[in-house]
């Protein structure tokens, strides 16, 4: 990873909703061009961690560093402006707008039309399926296409870091696999680091450079994807049977 600061670093991040603490004292980092997976059993706080980083959930303690500078207190739209983008798990598109318009709205802050056109080309080359549906209302797309659109929408600002919250939840297995495969293209074509929360832990860990396992709001294990998968105690962590 060299000497450059990681794209994202959290220091003792504690977050939740209101006064409800869901994640506590989390330290993670995402390096330049890395894909990092965040896995863990249901209700372990994966989504909340992502939301705390982006500022949608309340940060109750700790800090978030983006490319070396403290962005803990920045509101979400400011984070979008400086190169971080977030794809929520649900309600992540504008259903009453067409696919093309969704992408345009993704680049709302980008004034340069040619840049917008280029970004759109990039998105279409990553997700060729979307090209054919440019003038279709986003709400009438299939679940998988909607997720692609949501990721595409986030790519429109050419972010340095993409936070993806369970992009495959509720998708048929084949489609989920396709989407995860496409995410590799996202990294290569759009040159972006990705922090992904994923229910399908095995797939995510196979795909990712590194992974963190979150259990009950704390990091229980970390390492590169393959070695995490090989650990036996991980299976126990997932089924929640301790001891």
């Amino acid at each position: 990873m060299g000497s450059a600061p990681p794209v994202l670093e959290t220091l003792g991040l504690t977050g939740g909703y209101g006064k409800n603490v869901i994640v506590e004292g989390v330290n993670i980092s995402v390096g330049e061009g890395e894909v990092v997976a965040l896995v863990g059993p249901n209700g372990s706080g994966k989504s909340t961690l992502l939301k705390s980083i982006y500022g949608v959930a309340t940060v109750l303690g700790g800090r978030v560093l983006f490319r070396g500078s403290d962005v803990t207190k920045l509101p979400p739209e400011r984070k979008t402006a400086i190169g971080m983008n977030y794809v929520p798990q649900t309600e992540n598109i504008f259903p009453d707008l067409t696919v093309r318009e969704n992408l345009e709205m993704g680049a709302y802050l980008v004034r340069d039309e040619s840049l917008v056109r280029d970004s759109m080309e990039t998105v279409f080359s990553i997700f060729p399926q979307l090209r054919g549906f440019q003038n279709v209302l986003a709400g009438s797309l299939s679940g998988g296409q909607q997720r692609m659109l949501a990721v595409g929408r986030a790519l429109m600002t050419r972010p340095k870091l993409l936070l993806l919250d369970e992009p495959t939840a509720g998708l048929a297995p084949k489609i989920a696999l396709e989407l995860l495969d496409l995410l590799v293209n996202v990294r290569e074509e759009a040159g972006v680091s990705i922090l992904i929360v994923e229910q399908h832990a095995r797939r995510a860990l196979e795909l990712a450079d590194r992974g963190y396992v979150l259990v009950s709001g704390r990091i229980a294990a970390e390492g590169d994807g393959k070695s995490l998968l090989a650990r036996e105690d991980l299976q126990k962590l997932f089924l929640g049977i301790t001891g």
Partner: protein
Amino acid sequence: MSAVLYGVLAAFFNGLLVGSLYGLMALGLTLIYRVTKIPNFAFAEYITYGAYAAVAASFVIDPVNSAALLVAGILFATSAGAVIALASDELVFKPLWRRGSEVLQLLVASIGVGLVLRYSLLGAAALTGGKYLEVRFPVTYQTVFSVGGLASITTAHLLAITSMVLFAIVLHLLFTRTRLGKAMRATASNPTLAQITGINVILVRRITWLMAGALASFAGFTYSYYNPVNPESGWITLLWIFSAAIMGGFTFYGVLLSGLLLGIAENVVGFLANYYLGIGSEYNPVIALVTLVTVLMVRPEGLIRMESLVVARRV
């Protein structure tokens, strides 16, 4: 020409004018509904205030110069309507929306705003001796051509139809082609995501109200150009405007067609019912209202939809 045909033609021409007004008025209502989801009953009052503001222009401008007066009338009307619409949002609707009020509370609030505006105007008219309980724009319309002296097309027709078509096209293009219009739709479709992508949701809302208010009062000006106006004129038309908007499925072209259709049906069907069944024209309004209730019961998503708006989503 037979009396029936003649009567139908006259009714048709009249319906054309009335219908264009319904359509024109329903455009602004649709704009507000689509961006903020408020079924705004106070919208009627923006129309009335527009008409009164237009008439007020004649106090300032020498009525001999009719062209200047027309322009001044439009300017007075639209600016008054825009300001009142924006004020009603800033003072009432936005605070309620921020608190997460339900649609019904917003509806009741809009009834309250409507009562305040309407009866203040009535009260003011009464205070000044009742002279303004009915007003009329000093420049009157002229007949452009006429069939047999009774069925005629006037400049009022031209103004109402052109402006309705023009504004419907402008609004449609705004919503489908421009950054601002798309931001409006995005705000309506998913406000949270709109904010994340950097759209200034509050500014979008303000512009919406200014535009809708200006549209309403322009319609009010057009109304006063062909008909005397009283402080209740807008309110009396409100259910028709809602009918047009709901029938058109809250789409701009759909609303335009529904407005025309309502106006023509009201007049032509009314004429025929009178001619053959002896039912008086005073029942004409019932036609529009029965249509409204029927549409709501059978197809609440609208009869004439010119865009697909709401799509089947996962529950």
